């Protein structure tokens, strides 16, 4: 039980760790990783209900586990390899979606996976073996998109991220939404999430007119 206690204390750090994407966008008092996980789980659950044959318990566990690796690996953004120190340049960069060669995209993805896998292993190292393998398998399901639940949540997670970006934009006109829309149309292909995106788009048009 002592190891479980220590594990939970470490997990609690996600309540305080701020999401890096909002920090680099200079969002005041941004959400924490745990806050993102909470709504990603709700979003995955309520939209997952529309998917035929999806195991919702598995889906919610994937949601709860997917960012545990970030306690040690940290949060990453697509801009990390090109972040300027100058605040003005940073603001300009946030108006664009970063484009890289295929080879660079693969290098970035491989290095992120390696770092996060290491972070997860460190976190679960001392847990009882059945719990350790359950957490690891759930995480791998998400990362490698091994099952319909893993594949669906992989996109649902990003939809929560997009929704948060949208809400910040609605309140503060920051972050700039153009790169987000560009990315969304290349990223999402799930029918339920694309339907959700259309609803969000209609709201965006209404708010833009105001």
């Amino acid at each position: 039980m002592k190891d479980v206690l220590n594990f939970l204390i470490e997990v609690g750090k996600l309540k305080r760790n701020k999401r890096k994407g909002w920090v680099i966008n200079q969002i005041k008092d941004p959400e924490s990783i745990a806050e993102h996980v909470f709504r990603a789980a709700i979003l995955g659950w309520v939209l997952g209900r529309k998917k035929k044959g999806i195991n919702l318990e598995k889906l919610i566990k994937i949601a709860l586990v997917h960012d545990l690796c970030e306690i040690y690996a940290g949060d990453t953004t697509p801009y990390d390899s090109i972040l300027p120190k100058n605040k003005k340049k940073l603001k300009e960069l946030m108006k664009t979606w970063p484009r890289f060669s295929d080879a660079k995209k693969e290098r970035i993805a491989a290095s992120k996976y390696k770092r996060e896998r290491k972070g997860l292993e460190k976190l679960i190292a001392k847990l009882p073996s059945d719990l350790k393998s359950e957490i690891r398998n759930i995480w791998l399901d998400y990362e490698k998109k091994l099952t319909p639940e893993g594949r669906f949540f992989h996109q649902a997670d990003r939809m929560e991220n997009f929704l948060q970006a949208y809400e910040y934009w609605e309140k503060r006109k920051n972050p700039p939404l153009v790169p987000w829309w560009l990315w969304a149309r290349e990223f999402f292909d799930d029918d339920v999430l694309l339907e959700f995106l259309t609803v969000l788009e209609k709201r965006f048009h209404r708010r833009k007119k105001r």
Partner: protein
Amino acid sequence: MTEEKKFYLTKEGLEKIKNEYKSLKELKLAKTRGESPKVLQSEDLNPEYLIFQEDVSFLESRISEIDSIIKSATLIKFPRKEKQNIVDLGATISVEVGGQTDEFTLVGSLEANPSAGKISNESPVGMALLGHRIGEAVVVSSPIQTTYKIKKIKYRTS
């Protein structure tokens, strides 16, 4: 349970999944017999196999998942040479978008991984690009209008 849909897979993707299926079946058989499976002695061992070795229910659900994928898999075939200037599944496309150059490969949903340059044919951008030729400008609206100018199309095996 797998979604009831067709899985478009590249030749490499299908081979990869078939190899995984073979290895996992071998792993399951060896476990049933109480033997040490050959796949775990291999030098190029996939570290995930060690996890499947530990967790039988995960191993079984993955085998059943791959089984359904293979049954509903459709192999992506490259078009004839004279049609290789048109975007189809499996094409690697260089585009100019918002003043920047980007490159991605159009794949089926199962192999899609936009952060690694693989875009799904069912995504809005994937759907919009399909059927277009080198030199054409494809406009993707909703809600912000963006033009993807097709610079190059290649069909290559990795």
